[in-house]
């Protein structure tokens, strides 16, 4: 198991990261994990055991749509796409995160 995990203390964080990743385009699960890892400079290594339940959770809620397609190396893979509902949810989650993260930072910056 990797030593770095996606943050667990805010349960919706991984969902939010996934939504954000998919707002950049349609990807399959592996690309999503890779993107998050690279964009966070290797700080956040998404554990696959968390990624797929999250993806399915979001799909069940109607925030994502899944389709089978072929990957770069012509293997069959499931691609995920953000829905309109997903886009709206991303905005909400971003607002919430910004508020909470800002608040935590402020508290931590007090003497």
């Amino acid at each position: 198991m990797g030593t770095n995990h996606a943050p667990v203390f805010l349960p919706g964080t991984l969902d939010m990261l996934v939504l954000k990743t998919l707002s950049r385009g349609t990807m399959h699960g592996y690309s999503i994990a890779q993107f998050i890892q690279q964009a966070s400079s290797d700080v956040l290594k998404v554990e696959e055991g968390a990624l797929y339940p999250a993806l399915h959770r979001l799909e069940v809620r109607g925030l994502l749509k899944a389709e089978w397609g072929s990957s770069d190396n012509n293997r069959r893979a499931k691609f995920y796409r953000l829905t309109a509902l997903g886009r709206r949810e991303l905005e909400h989650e971003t607002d919430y995160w910004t508020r909470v993260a800002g608040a935590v930072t402020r508290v931590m910056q007090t003497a």
Partner: protein
Amino acid sequence: MELLAVWHRVVALVRRRRLERDLDEELAFHLAMREADYREHGASETDARTAARRRFGSVAYLKEQCRDMWTFHPLETLIQDVRYALRTLRKAPGFTIVAVTALAVGIGANTAIFSLFDALRTRALPYTDPSGLVVLWGNVQRARVERRGASYPDYLDWRAQTKTVVLKGTVPTAAQKSTAEAIAHDKAEGYKIVNQLTVGPKRQD
């Protein structure tokens, strides 16, 4: 989107096997990609595979989590329990026969007795005011005070004379088929019929 989640579960009930296969394939793809990645970074084939699998964590747990999202878990466990119970019963036929017979006899006896009881007591008598039915009789002094039956003229007298209750009509006793028959019988015996009353209308059941 609670409704959507429920809909997914309903759909999943039907497409269960396909969903499982999809999940398997998706995970296999991810594993393969991860392996290729490791190999690109210089690991040997077996090393890459074990490393990839280790990073994947517990595949079984992950599948369980995904499955949780598309099952009616309580319903499925119930069905599994029922199947298990049936299998166990089939393995012990002697016990099963005895148990089933006992249940059948018990249920059958109860039903029979209740039907009987229901027919005799709880079915309302087919008159407009069944709770208002009373039995009247007279007392006569013979060797000691005895009851005597009531006849139709008795009813008329009582109806006329009583100041405390209102007698509205008569119903035939078990011994008579109808008030008309009772009246006919009394007529034959020589009683004088002063009035003929109509009995309260029979209730349509």
